[in-house]
């Protein structure tokens, strides 16, 4: 009798709890990333949770495929459409391939925005750039130029040859090269955002270009692998690895001197801002050129003619501040 009573009570409590959850009608926002298990996106998810805590009535679904493929993201999008989420905020592996699936999501009343790595215009309502591409392109070249005495060969180690944002940044970086006469860009290679391949590509660069002074890796996987390759080759002080990295992963390289400085925006802010924008769009804001949509503590996103907005400037990390940031993300 006692056991039965307990079971009944538990069941009753469970029913009440479930009913409460259902009654709350949380706004379900899905944060879809390129692939799970990448530090940058884990930090963005943390930011999304911060936004959710601030807003109160938001449930964050942090998800993504195992490997960085468009096909994998489409499977994830289909599952999210089936669940009837309120918003999808995606960092896309391919701007075009995911567009048809996202269009279907919008047809079924789901708010769709892209952040970090964009989606073709017809596949989203707006896109949030972490920073402006021109500023990033300039920053990564400047970081390399600042620490070259005289002139020197510089090579770029990118992610995949189809990575949307890396390609834009490299394009912008090439535009500002005339402003940095001491930088001689000799090659762009692709490590596919795989640690082992990036490491080998960095080794290849060192072997091919004896006058190499800096490797610019505008990807968190690439910069880490390249700084490891430089360390292993005993070329600390000769070759400076810079680009875009995560403070937690780069702390060792900065301390050893393989990397003097690197830049990144704050992915926590990015996840936070993407969540705030999704929420405001679900609650009735309209994404149209010229619109200003609030992003909580970060300010407001002002949309350009392509419904794109920039969040903030990239931030430089070096020996002076790495200790402070490495525990954050």
């Amino acid at each position: 009798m006692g056991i039965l009573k307990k079971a009944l009570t538990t069941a009753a409590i469970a029913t009440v709890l479930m009913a409460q959850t259902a009654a709350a009608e949380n706004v379900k926002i899905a944060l879809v990333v390129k692939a799970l298990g990448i530090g940058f996106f884990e930090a963005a998810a943390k930011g999304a949770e911060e936004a959710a805590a601030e807003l109160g009535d938001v449930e964050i679904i942090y998800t993504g495929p195992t490997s960085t493929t468009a096909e994998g993201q489409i499977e994830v999008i289909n599952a999210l459409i089936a669940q009837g989420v309120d918003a999808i905020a995606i960092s896309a592996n391919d701007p075009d391939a995911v567009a048809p699936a996202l269009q279907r999501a919008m047809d079924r009343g789901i708010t769709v925005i892209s952040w970090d790595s964009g989606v073709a215009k017809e596949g989203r309502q707006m896109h949030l750039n972490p920073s402006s591409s021109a500023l990033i392109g300039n920053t990564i070249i400047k970081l390399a130029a600042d620490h070259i005495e005289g002139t020197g060969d510089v090579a770029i180690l990118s992610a995949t040859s189809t990575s949307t944002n890396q390609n834009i940044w490299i394009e912008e970086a090439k535009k500002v090269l005339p402003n940095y006469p001491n930088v001689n860009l000799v090659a762009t290679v692709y490590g596919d955002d795989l640690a082992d391949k990036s490491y080998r590509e960095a080794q290849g660069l060192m072997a091919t270009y004896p006058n190499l002074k800096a490797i610019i890796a505008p990807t968190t996987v690439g910069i880490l692998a390249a700084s490891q390759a430089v360390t292993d080759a005993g070329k600390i002080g000769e070759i400076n690895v810079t680009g875009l990295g995560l403070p937690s992963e780069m702390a060792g390289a900065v301390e050893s001197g393989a990397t003097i400085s690197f830049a990144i925006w704050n992915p926590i802010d990015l996840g936070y801002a993407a969540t705030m924008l999704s929420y405001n769009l679900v609650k009735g804001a309209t994404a149209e050129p010229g619109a200003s949509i609030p992003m909580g503590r970060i300010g407001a996103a002002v949309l350009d003619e392509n419904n794109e907005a920039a969040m903030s400037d990239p931030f430089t990390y070096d020996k002076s501040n790495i200790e402070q940031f490495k525990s954050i993300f």
Partner: protein
Amino acid sequence: MTRSPRILPDRLQSPAARALRSWEAILVAVAIAVFVTNSFASPYFLNAWNLSDATFNFTEKALIAFAMAMLIIAGDIDLSVASIIALASTAMGVAMAAGADTPVLVLVGIGTGLLCGVINGALVAGMGLPSIVVTIGTMSLFRGIAYIVLGDKAFTGYPASFKFFGQGYVWWVISFELALFAVMAVVYYLLLHRTSFGRAVFAIGNNATAAQFSGIRVARVRFILFLLTGVMSGIAAVCLTSRLGSTRPSIATGWELEVVTMVVLGGVSILGGSGSIPGVVLAALIMGMVTFGFGLLNVPGIVMSIFLGVLLIGVIALPRLLRRR
């Protein structure tokens, strides 16, 4: 337990007992288990449109898996299928850029697949090179050509009528891809299990030399099998390109292993000589449902990979354990 007398190899079990202990029976049980679990785990699973969406997870891969199953039964393998998709999709993109309309695009896609199959077939069946080496080579070659043509660019803007193959519906929730999957399942079932060509495939897989001496034109059969995988990859390329509405050289990356997984999970012996199309159909359904069901629960993809790996080892080990008893 006393040891029962050995059953003479030429004596058949009763058909019912055989069916119950077959690989397909295990797969049916797994499929039902997955379906029921999913239905209870997520309130969104049992919904016609959602299930229809879920079929896109496996239809294209399954189309290739049918041809791949026959190839593996015959003792060969084709690891270039995903690269054939990339090349066929790129060729369609080039044709589109030159102004080709939908029927021409489809022909170009399938034609490119056929051509790739001819190359693989000529190297393996014609020159007698090992298929695994040849297709690892063509895997890099075909995708390499796609990368040379496209680099970091993409082909977009396929004609609206082209969308039908990957986004269109034949009737209610039955998508074109699902219908094609069903038709091809029947076609390949008949081809493998009801024709002399199918018997020849099994014979070659069990003993190619003996097959040769019994009058089977081994080289020709193997050549045709490579043509089939090429053509099926071309058809899959048409569907996938249409579904994505774009072409990039990284399209369908890693699919060759997923196709082979589907075939092996379907009970086809990786050493050749045995397997069935119904098994592959069931494996496709299981993989699709597991992927979708886990997606609905927002289970991280890596857990899904682990589950599929365990499932694969499980269904392979189970019959062996049962037999030992």
